[in-house]
């Protein structure tokens, strides 16, 4: 690699790090999953058990959703050294997401031997709104993606040299992804299978050597499989799976009722299985909706910035150009081409099996093939204009448009996001929790609104409540329709819908928008100036 290329790569990685690390200790606010990861890791460090008293579990019971454990363990050293805070919980993802960018560079170089294309690919991922969003926060999905990308790199590396070592690393990283995020349990095995099928002849030629790494894979996978099945894995799927959507069932009944008499054709066509299949297809293809990709993004505010898509709008023509160039050029080897397209098609599968689609979070791995294709489109465009006499003008226009798009997306994320969707993250708890801890001794009880998601864990997190105490006190509610439980009270805290009349005297009451007949003692505002929490003293 030339010196200039090394410098460009370092600059890209530094930019990626800066964009992902800037104000990471406070922005975005925090969410209950992050608090759960942080507090459970803290609990492990203090007592060797999680909040529910389980010793070093593979799946953390948390809100009854049995979160895969890898992220919890990754955050342990950071919390041990730098104490429990938002930054230490987010550091593993920060580091691994920058590593993903490095590895996409290394992967493209390995596949194409083209440094320029590899640098463009790394730059596209660096500025990708999709990847940036999920790099900032303790997103298990992003960490699982890092493991998958690193694993893929080692698979291709094993084809070139040191088969045993690199193939073992491929197996280890793919297995690690299974311990990190639920969706990876569908994506990673399918990707591995597609690699085995595409490189069947190569794999076949390595049969004696492959046994050892495969054995490692089996040994690593068995515990996660058992733990998943033991800890309500199927119940979790029933809660969030696409069959939990009653729509196709109701529609099937409606369609069957519209026939005067039913024959075999009607019964077959309007069958609920047919309609569920169509519903699945609808969810799967929604991830390729151009508005989802380029203008509006996800519907879930926690997974999107306002007024932008998962990719930049200007990326869209390059994405198409990239696909055409992928098919028509020899820059990628035939098998690599098939793999990139397979990756693109496999990536939304896990998300399509849930009731909520499109999902930028669950389909995050789409960002890798999409970035590779966009980079290929830009590379091809630069090649097309290379001999044009207006080359410099085209180049300036391209840089200007990309510059505008990138600043627009950063503006949306850093300046508008938290103000537009103040409740998407648990904004205000970082101020509320320390304040209540100060006031706690003056009151017999503290009543907190349950309007915001899983408030108990945020108080445990910010107050660093002794884990040995919560392990004795904790009591989860029965799971809701989506399989989630919560804690209604611990210590002096009670989390419920505030009904002023029923609250006993000498209580501190925290409301959101509930009506209370007295003036609040204190108001904590959201970033957009609207009141988030109103604190009342009931004497």
């Amino acid at each position, binding site marked *: 690699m030339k010196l200039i290329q090394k410098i460009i790569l370092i600059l890209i990685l530094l930019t990626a790090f800066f964009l992902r690390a800037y104000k990471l200790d406070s922005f975005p606010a925090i969410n209950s999953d992050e608090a759960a990861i942080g507090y459970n890791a803290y609990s492990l460090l203090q007592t060797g058990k999680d909040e529910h008293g389980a010793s070093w579990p593979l799946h953390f019971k948390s809100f009854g959703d049995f979160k895969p454990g890898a992220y919890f363990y990754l955050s342990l050293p950071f919390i041990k050294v730098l104490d429990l805070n938002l930054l230490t919980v987010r550091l593993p993802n920060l580091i691994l997401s920058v590593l993903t960018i490095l590895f996409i560079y290394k992967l493209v170089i390995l596949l194409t031997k083209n440094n320029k294309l590899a640098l463009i690919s790394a730059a596209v991922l660096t500025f990708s709104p999709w990847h940036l969003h999920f790099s900032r926060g303790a997103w298990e999905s992003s960490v699982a993606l890092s493991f998958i990308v690193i694993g893929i790199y080692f698979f291709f590396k094993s084809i070139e040299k040191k088969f045993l070592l690199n193939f073992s690393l491929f197996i280890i990283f793919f297995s690690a992804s299974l311990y990190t995020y639920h969706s990876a349990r569908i994506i990673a095995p399918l990707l591995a299978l597609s690699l085995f099928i595409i490189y069947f002849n190569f794999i076949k030629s390595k049969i004696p050597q492959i046994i050892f790494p495969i054995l490692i894979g089996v040994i690593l996978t068995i515990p996660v499989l058992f733990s998943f099945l033991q800890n309500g894995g199927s119940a979790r799927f029933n809660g969030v799976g696409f069959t939990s959507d009653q729509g196709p069932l109701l529609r099937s009944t409606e369609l069957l009722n519209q026939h005067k008499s039913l024959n075999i054709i009607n019964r077959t066509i309007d069958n609920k299985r047919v309609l569920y299949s169509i519903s699945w297809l609808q969810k799967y293809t929604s991830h390729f909706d151009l508005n989802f990709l380029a203008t509006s993004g996800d519907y879930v505010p926690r997974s999107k910035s306002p007024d932008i898509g998962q990719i930049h709008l200007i990326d869209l023509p390059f994405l198409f150009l990239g696909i055409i160039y992928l098919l028509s050029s020899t820059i990628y080897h035939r098998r690599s081409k098939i793999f990139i397209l397979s990756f693109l098609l496999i990536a939304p599968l896990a998300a399509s099996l849930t009731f909520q689609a499109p999902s930028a979070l669950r389909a995050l791995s789409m960002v890798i093939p999409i970035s590779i294709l966009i980079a290929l489109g830009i590379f091809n465009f630069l090649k097309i204009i290379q001999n044009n006499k207006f080359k410099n003008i085209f180049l300036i226009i391209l840089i200007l448009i990309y510059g505008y798009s990138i600043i627009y997306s950063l503006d949306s994320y850093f*300046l508008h996001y938290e*103000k537009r969707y103040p409740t998407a993250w648990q904004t205000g708890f970082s101020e509320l929790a320390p304040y209540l801890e100060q006031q706690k001794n003056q009151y017999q009880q503290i009543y907190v609104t349950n309007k915001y998601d899983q408030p108990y864990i945020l108080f445990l997190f910010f107050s660093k409540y002794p884990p040995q105490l919560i392990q004795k006190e904790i009591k989860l509610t029965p799971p809701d329709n989506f399989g989630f439980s919560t804690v209604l009270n611990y210590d002096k805290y009670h989390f419920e819908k505030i009904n002023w009349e029923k609250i006993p005297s000498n209580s501190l009451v925290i409301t959101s928008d509930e009506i209370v007949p007295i003036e609040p003692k204190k108001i904590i505002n959201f970033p957009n100036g609207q009141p988030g929490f109103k604190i009342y003293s009931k004497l």
Partner: protein
Amino acid sequence: MAKNTKAFLIIVFIISFILKILRVELNLINLPILILSSLIPIVFFFLIKEIDQKSEKLAFISTILLTLNPYNIYFSDITLKTNFFLFLLLLMMWLVSKYFHIKNNKFLLPILIIIPLIFNLIFIDNNSGLYPQDQHRTQTIINETNSLDYYIFYNPIQLFLRNFTIRYLNYFSPEFLIFGNTFANPRHGTILYPSIIFLILGIFISFSSKKKQKINLIFLIWLLIAPISAALSPELINSNKAFFMSIPLVYFISIGIYFILNKYKNKLVYFSIIFIYLLSLIYYLDMYLNHFIK
């Protein structure tokens, strides 16, 4: 013209006509539009045949698909203006291709690009570009940051382009193309389910090989310009105004099928394609005839 081709075209006309009268009452008022819309696949056949003179296979596939295409079945019986102009557009393109092919003229390509562009203008009306205004949005953005941020990133031009882009891209969404939740026909999209695979295949195959790239380019440009006037309308989806895109859609689907049939020349592939299309067609006709009005 060969006898088989004549017979094929007569059958196409009859099937096309029958599909329309299954839902529309046959009377003197409806008759002209029913005849005209039933003639559209036939003109399309001649156009494709003229464009691809080496083989009639593509023309046969395209014609069958257009006859059975949900978008065309649905719209062929309700709007005279749309069908009349589509008929006229195809007729003009066919005659122009025929004339210039004879003369082997270099102007053929630009003319074939300009014709659909001009026809697209027909649907631009007084409401075009008048997107719903949201004053609250402007104030929200200014409150979140400042006026400078608003003028750089959220100004009226930017907002217009955003509104336009969202509407434009809606016409290429899976919802519009296959599922139909945003389409005027609420039970189905504009094309049959299996067509989505052949459509994607057709578009990418068309431009990854150098063969017939110019002709494919005409249809690609047609596909890209067809939803413009519809995207300018205030509604998020205006299927009527985007109706011209049914032609390039069917063209690229046909290219996809043609590619597969040429690549895998065995009966199993033929029958598989026919079978899945038959199932999909039965599903569509059930939705169209039994559930649509209910």
